[in-house]
């Protein structure tokens, strides 16, 4: 028994190799998940009641063209072969042409994705900068009025239909009060004024020095971003509270207090310092959730992001666009999940 463990110890690879093995394992699991994801979209694409040949050729193609395209698209091959064709195309970044815009889907996605990214990033920032302090406060003042208010704020956030809140927000702040810009990314007079660099209009307008465009864009993004921010706030503040409660009941906190440390230092340096890693994971998850949750928000605010793109494509039976968009959103989702996993492993010595 001891001899074998001894032998095992002797053959243990150097640390960097085990690190490489870990990375390889992670990459492998990403690959498997991605292939699975593509398989699901492939199946959805196959059961969709849309003829892919007619989608390309239009309704009035002749029988000969139809048959030729049918074979050219590989539709006569077995499904498993078709799946590998699909896989190969996607790996090369080819999602096929969009029926609606008559452009390659990948170009469309590259155009609409920055808009979603901009909205979700701003929403997450709002959620973090309000949600984290609110959660900490609720944990420190457990059971008081502040804790109750934080709980109600979060519960309302969990229960509110986001598209409805967006409508009501538009009605009040745009329709009645006129405090914010209406739907869309910028007002009609500001469209296409700034050259596209990153695709995020806030950053592009700063890069170009066009401050009037910037402020107009801010007035348009502030309402949808606050809405998304509220959702992520609800989640982040509850998680922060429960993490903090766990830390504050630990014995080392009592020790720190007994030593006469100021309450501020106990809370922020000790307790908060220990929940940072868990918090990063939660924030990454909520960020991924916002990329998805923005589907309905984008429609309400006519935001030209990936959510509106998928939905518009869906309503006009543009299969390539729907599947391409779904795969991209799924990919981002997977990457963020894995990123938060890695961060967790990297920063938390117990998980190593």
């Amino acid at each position: 028994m001891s001899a074998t463990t001894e032998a095992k110890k002797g053959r243990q690879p150097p640390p960097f190799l085990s690190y490489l093995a870990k990375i390889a394992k992670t990459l492998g699991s990403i690959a498997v998940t991605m292939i699975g994801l593509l398989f699901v979209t492939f199946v959805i694409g196959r059961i969709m009641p849309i003829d892919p040949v007619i989608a390309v050729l239009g309704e009035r193609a002749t029988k000969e063209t139809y048959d030729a395209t049918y074979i050219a698209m590989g539709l006569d091959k077995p499904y498993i072969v078709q799946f590998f064709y699909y896989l190969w195309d996607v790996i090369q970044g080819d999602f096929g042409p969009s029926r609606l815009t008559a452009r390659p889907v990948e170009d469309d996605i590259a155009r609409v994705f920055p808009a979603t990214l901009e909205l979700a990033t701003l929403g997450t920032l709002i959620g973090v900068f309000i949600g984290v302090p609110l959660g900490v406060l609720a944990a420190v003042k457990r059971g008081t009025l502040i804790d109750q208010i934080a709980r109600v704020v979060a519960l309302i956030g969990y229960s509110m239909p986001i598209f409805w809140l967006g409508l009501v927000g538009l009605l009040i702040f745009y329709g009645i009060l006129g405090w914010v810009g209406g739907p869309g990314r910028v007002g009609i007079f500001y469209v296409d004024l700034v050259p596209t660099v990153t695709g995020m209009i806030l950053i592009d307008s700063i890069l170009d020095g066009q401050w009037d465009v910037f402020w107009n864009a801010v007035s348009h993004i502030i309402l949808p971003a606050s809405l998304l921010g509220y959702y992520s706030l609800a989640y982040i503040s509850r998680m922060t509270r429960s993490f903090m409660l766990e830390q504050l009941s630990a014995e080392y906190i009592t020790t720190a207090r007994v030593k006469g440390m100021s309450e501020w230092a106990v809370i922020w340096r000790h307790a908060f310092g220990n929940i940072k890693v868990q918090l990063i994971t939660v924030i990454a998850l909520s960020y991924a959730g916002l990329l998805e949750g923005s589907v309905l928000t984008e429609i309400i605010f006519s935001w030209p992001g990936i959510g509106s793109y998928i939905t518009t494509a869906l309503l006009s039976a543009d299969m390539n666009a729907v599947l391409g968009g779904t795969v991209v959103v799924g990919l981002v989702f997977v990457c963020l999940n894995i990123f938060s996993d890695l961060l967790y492993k990297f920063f938390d010595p117990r998980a190593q």
Partner: protein
Amino acid sequence: MTAVGIPEPGKPGWRQWLLTDTPTSRRHARAASLYQSWLTLKSNKLAMIGLGILVFLALVALFAPILSPYDPFAQDLGNRLQPLGADGHLLGTDSLGRDILSRLIHGSRITLYIVSLVALIAPIAGLIVGTVAGYVGGWSDTVLMRITDIFLAFPRLVLALAFVAALGAGIENAVLAIALTAWPPYARIARAETLSIRKSDYISAVKLQGAGPLRIITKHIWPLCISSLIVRVTLDMAGIILAAAGLGFLGLGAQPPSPEWGAMISEGRKFILDHWWIATMPGLAIFTVSLAFNLLGDGLRDVLDPKDGGEL
């Protein structure tokens, strides 16, 4: 008050029977433990408010034809876009002159229908996948959990959108799409529970008595997974309602003229600036019901799953 110990007829006797420390039968013990949980839940005011709203919703749905003052589909174009409280229409009328209150009342049936179907399909599917993966282990565990991960990796609403697009719009397909995106968390929970139960002594004892895997899973593992699943289902209900309403809003769930709440918001959206109540009232209904589920779920978690109580 007569002598202590002799059960009085009526309510107090039942109370005593339920609160006893020495149950006389298995059914007695089960009833007593249920009653204890009920007492704990009853002391949670917010949870009781949630339960009250849900009971009210169920009653409204049950007696919808009696309660609604008008036919939810009857159009009255002379009376369209009436404001709140206009002659006999408590919540006004929509763009086709249909009474909004009656439509809301009938819409509660659709909401309950969607929620109960999803709440039946998703947890059961998750329970089967999770317990099989956890109990059998090995390759089937790896494969099943990979599949679960893939479904978890998909953003729920986008996947539901794609499914509805493939299957065609409609309530049943919306239910199926939401259930297909909702089962993975249940599978995770069920697997975790199974892994912790699998090695326990009583499972070995049952095995020695000759029980096969099927019997062990259905009779001895499932009952122990139920309570954590119930908590999760109740907390998920709000999400299911919101997802269904979102699909309805996009025109992919219930089809017009169905009085589904999300579809009603979508109809009212065109008139939001001048006739705000048309979109606002169904939104309030959705909000109230999902809040009720969240409040109840929060309370249930404290009762059934005290180990991470107070997380939400």
